[in-house]
């Protein structure tokens, strides 16, 4: 792996980690268990558009592991990793089929998948089947947060085109 690519990935990882930890400090706007804005998904989408899928996946998993070390703890790790991996599995195969200005569609689908994974894990951990009902308000909210996050990712991509072009010949090598 070229040094420039390694540095690029490290920057994306530290960016997403900073966003993840900062977001955890914001009190939840709605008192729904599992609700969050999902801002760190901006970096996952950005990485999926600029790097290989496997590399974007490494950034995601590393961010969740490190994020749990810095803020959440072990139970937060379980919810995040199940949601994160399901979100990635939804976004990664379809992201090439959509133009970048339609990134919000990918983001909403990813957010919904993230919720499904998180609620399923919460059900397994607490063994309380009624917890499944929270999928309904979470899905409603994920449409809004998903669009928001997808648009941020699209703006980020269009603003970093110049930098990316400079880096591309080194990154692709």
């Amino acid at each position, binding site marked *: 792996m070229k040094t420039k690519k390694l540095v690029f990935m490290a920057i994306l990882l530290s960016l997403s980690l900073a966003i993840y930890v900062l977001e955890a400090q914001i009190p939840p706007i709605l008192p729904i*268990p*599992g609700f969050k804005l999902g801002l760190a998904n901006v970096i996952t989408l950005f990485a999926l558009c600029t790097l290989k899928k496997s590399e974007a996946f490494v950034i995601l998993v590393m961010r969740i592991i490190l994020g749990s070390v810095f803020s959440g703890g072990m*139970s937060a790790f379980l919810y995040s990793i199940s949601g994160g991996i399901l979100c990635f599995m939804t976004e990664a195969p379809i992201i090439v089929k959509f133009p970048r200005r339609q990134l919000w569609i990918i983001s*909403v689908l990813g957010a919904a998948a993230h919720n499904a994974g998180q609620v399923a894990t919460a059900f397994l951990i*607490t*063994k309380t089947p*009624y*917890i499944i*009902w929270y999928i309904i308000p979470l899905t409603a909210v994920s449409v*809004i947060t998903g669009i928001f996050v997808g648009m941020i990712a699209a703006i980020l991509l269009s603003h970093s085109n110049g930098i990316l072009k400079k880096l591309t010949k080194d990154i692709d090598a």
Partner: protein
Amino acid sequence: MRAKIFTVIFAAVLIVCGAASLYIMKHKTPASIVLIKSDGKVVRRIDLKAVTRPYEFEVKAEYGYNRIYIDGDGIRITDADCPDKICIRHGVLKSNFSPIVCLPHKLTVIFENADGNIDAVTD
């Protein structure tokens, strides 16, 4: 074209789920026996009808504590050392559609079904 289809789908999902959430939040379960579950196991079973005066107690788990308060209005969590405090903001338990949940501490508060078959579902 495809963007339009997704816009319509997302709008429909938003409206349906939003309306369903409002219904769920207003729903009340007509039951009086509550179960407090920590880490998947029932740690307390309380009949709210048998409560004569308010009292509170703490449920301690591996990751932290939740202080639970019971009075004539019902059961609620008044204090916890979790980061998000969602369980406190949830307020009084009204329905099994909206159980009190503290995800970081793996704690839930729910009503026991009238036929008492909750454990048949979970165990």
